């Protein structure tokens, strides 16, 4: 067992968990933050993407112990005071989701993109989102959402 202390969505949390606990499991099972999804479990689908110290990573392929002391942001941490984050609002506006399973990962990944690139091209958005798989939308409206958010962020 190991004691994990993290700052999750601005709140300090501390839990004793087995050493092999994945960050995705820690967030979902220990903190009840089930917005972070686990899709493929083989590190390819990107539904589990969260931010660790501001950078997007796949939480299903990261040990909780490995990010000890870090700042973690999950999809639950994006909206402020009941108001959607511009990326969430853009996904809603452009219908960038259908079943919604991949959406938390898509949104977290896209937010990271816009942190480093203010006005990405369609090609840059598509390349960045290579690690996020969506089986419903055909990606068109997801790209549109990221472009829409780029004008607001």
């Amino acid at each position, binding site marked *: 067992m*190991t004691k994990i202390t993290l700052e999750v969505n601005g709140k300090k949390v501390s839990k004793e968990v*087995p*050493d*092999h606990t*994945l960050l995705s499991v820690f967030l979902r099972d220990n903190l009840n933050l089930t917005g972070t999804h686990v899709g493929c*479990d*083989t*590190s*390819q689908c*990107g539904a589990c*993407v969260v931010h660790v110290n501001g*950078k*997007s*990573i*796949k939480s*299903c*392929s*990261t*040990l909780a*112990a*490995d990010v*000890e002391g870090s700042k973690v942001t999950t999809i639950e941490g994006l909206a402020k005071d009941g108001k959607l984050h511009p990326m969430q609002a853009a996904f809603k506006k452009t219908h960038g989701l259908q079943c919604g399973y991949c959406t938390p990962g898509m949104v977290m*990944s896209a937010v*990271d*993109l816009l942190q480093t690139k203010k006005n990405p091209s369609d090609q840059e958005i598509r390349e*960045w989102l*290579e*690690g*996020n*798989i969506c089986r419903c939308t055909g990606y068109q409206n997801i790209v549109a959402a990221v472009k829409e958010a780029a004008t607001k962020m």
Partner: protein
Amino acid sequence: MKSFNYHAPKDVKDASKLASSSSAFLAGGMTTIPSMKLGLASYKDVIDIKNIKKLSGIKVSGKTVTVGATTKHVEVAESKDVKKAIPALAKLAGNIGDAQVRNRGTIGGSISNNDPSACYPSACMALNAVIHTNKRKIEAEKFFTGMFETALKSGELVEAVEFEIPEKADYQKHPNPASRYAIIGVFVAKHKKDVNVAVTGAKSCVYIDKDLSKKLSSNFSLSAIEGAEVKSSGMNSDMHASAEYRANLVSLYAKKAVEAC
């Protein structure tokens, strides 16, 4: 995933003391953790080496670029020093996996795992890399010994990879659309005296295509390899590409790389 004990030592000495026949070093974990989750590997002890400060960072000297074992792909891809000294290496790192893999995955992890489709081993071979471990220095050609096999002994840890700066180089990859691993990757490096054409993804282990290297060494131009035949014997054949298709891709991507040099 089976349970294990997690360790995060602060120096190499402590890390190697913890190592045993049932332990694994953990860097980015982009292969190690999925392998453990799938039950393909299990360990008693997982030794995280990311807290060992001296294992991370990029140094450029007159003739070489040295990349610390725990340096992440994104750091190599965005490094101004690497872009200036060996732009092909920065390009290679920037196309590994996806953005999230590049934010975690490391060069030391990639070469220690020696996946037959990994990108970095081809750069090591073409750029005459020397692998620095906590025990010795190993030339790339002697380091990659077979499919997922390296010359590393139990408890031996890669500390850094030292690449020779070439006159010109380029890396061309035909990625698997889902995993972004190389179905074929060709790294062409023109050094002062000779040219290396390293191929990944084609066979069970990265290799130097001696025929293409020789032809380009005597005449570094597209015409030198225009009609060169790449044999498909010994090449992988799977649902993504037949051996014959891979052989054709090697030829095609070698030309692309020479053109881009």
